């Protein structure tokens, strides 16, 4: 078959998955946060408020799209693309099962992290080009925060790469199915990755780019209608991508312990999605229960605690792997 056609079909399929995830996440975040705050969340439209999702999407599509006169026009207009398109491309590297993966290059983990590093740039562009005081502060905080926690995230992914001997997500998942889930040998990396994912997806306690109570809506203050919608679609997609990344690196991906990698068959994709949503649920519960950090506090935690700790942990981990290999070789 024509490779371009296959590639287009895959892009279409992933787009459907991404939109489904987005609409499910809108409902889920409202319900989970609602119940975490002893409220009910949406109840009126449809059974248990599920049709609220449709109402939200229709509303976003039919609202008037205004932009401020004093904005930096071109940057303002392309910022939603810079946020959305890389989040979409990052989706293509998610290994749903051994066969169900849109793009599987040799270094898919690094490629995914590279594409996930771009949306903060779009968030900065959006806030900066709005030329609004709230949006500028939000944009500056995006550079301070999201960028700081990206380095520990990159470092947290290195121990699984050492264990698997590959930076390919499929290979890392398969290596886990042959040994153990990497959450056990790399527990500190797992915790660091969780913290960084919470920061990278802009969620409380690290939602300083939006910080509703102080910055109105932060970087997206001046955005309306579908442009605003794309910012949030990208954010929900980011939730799923980071959950998928952590599941693939530390929680065995689409495999289950004690069951051979092929025995699950088509249920493997369900296992993977269920694990991802459990993690997203955890993210949302953290979001609902922790209070917001002060900006200088979390910057100091990122640079002065997480970064040196991650570096030291890699040295300790590499030495431990070396010693274990030596003991096994000697015995």
């Amino acid at each position: 078959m024509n490779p371009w056609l296959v590639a287009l079909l895959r892009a279409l399929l992933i787009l459907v998955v991404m939109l489904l995830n987005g609409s499910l996440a809108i409902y889920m975040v409202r319900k989970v946060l609602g119940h975490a705050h002893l409220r009910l969340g949406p109840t009126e439209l449809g059974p248990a408020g599920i049709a609220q999702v449709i109402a939200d999407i229709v509303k976003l599509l039919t609202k008037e799209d205004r932009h401020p006169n004093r904005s930096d026009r071109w940057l303002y207009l392309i910022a939603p693309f810079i946020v959305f398109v890389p989040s979409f491309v990052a989706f293509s590297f998610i290994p749903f099962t051994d066969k169900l993966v849109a793009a599987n290059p040799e270094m898919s983990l690094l490629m995914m992290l590279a594409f996930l590093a771009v949306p903060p740039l779009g968030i900065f562009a959006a806030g900066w080009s709005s030329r609004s005081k709230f949006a500028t502060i939000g944009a500056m905080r995006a550079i301070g925060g999201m960028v700081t926690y990206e380095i520990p995230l990159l470092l947290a992914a290195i121990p699984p790469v050492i264990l698997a001997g590959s930076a390919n997500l499929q290979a890392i998942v398969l290596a886990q199915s042959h040994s153990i889930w990497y959450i056990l040998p790399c527990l500190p990396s797992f915790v660091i990755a969780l913290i960084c994912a919470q920061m990278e997806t802009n969620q409380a306690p690290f939602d300083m780019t939006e910080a509703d109570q102080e910055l109105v809506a932060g970087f997206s203050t001046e955005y309306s209608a579908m442009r605003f919608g794309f910012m949030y679609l990208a954010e929900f997609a980011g939730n799923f991508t980071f959950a998928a990344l952590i599941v693939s690196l530390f929680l065995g991906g689409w495999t289950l312990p004690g069951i051979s990698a092929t025995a699950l068959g088509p249920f493997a994709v369900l296992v993977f999605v269920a694990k991802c949503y459990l993690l997203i649920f955890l993210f949302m519960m953290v979001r609902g229960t922790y209070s917001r950090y002060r900006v200088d506090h979390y910057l100091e935690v990122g640079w002065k605690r997480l970064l040196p700790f991650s570096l030291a942990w890699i040295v300790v981990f590499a030495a431990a792997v070396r010693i274990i290999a030596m003991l096994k070789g000697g015995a």
Partner: protein
Amino acid sequence: MFQQIVIACFLVFGVAFTLLALGLSWLLSPTNPTEGKGLTFESGMEPLGPPWIRYRSGFFVYAVLYVVFDIETAFLYPWAIAYGKSVTNWFFFAEMLIFIAILFGGLLYAWKEKALSWH
């Protein structure tokens, strides 16, 4: 080559979908520009002063540090793959120690220069 085609398709498709959805929104939404709608949001008041405010340069220092450390961290990946494939090689281990020592040196220098603190 196929992987690159897929990634290129994703890029084009993502842009196309965004344009399509924005176009659909443009068709469906009303257009009624009034003077007030074009003003910068400032809690309902008339905007005061210039729209671009001066902001602390501390964030700029963080951005520069990020570029340095992010690139150096990305160099650890090829090492991690090579090390994972031959853990018994002392050379790889020593190499990593030297590299991380340099990273640590840079971090300590930035720390000493108070580039990491919030002013």
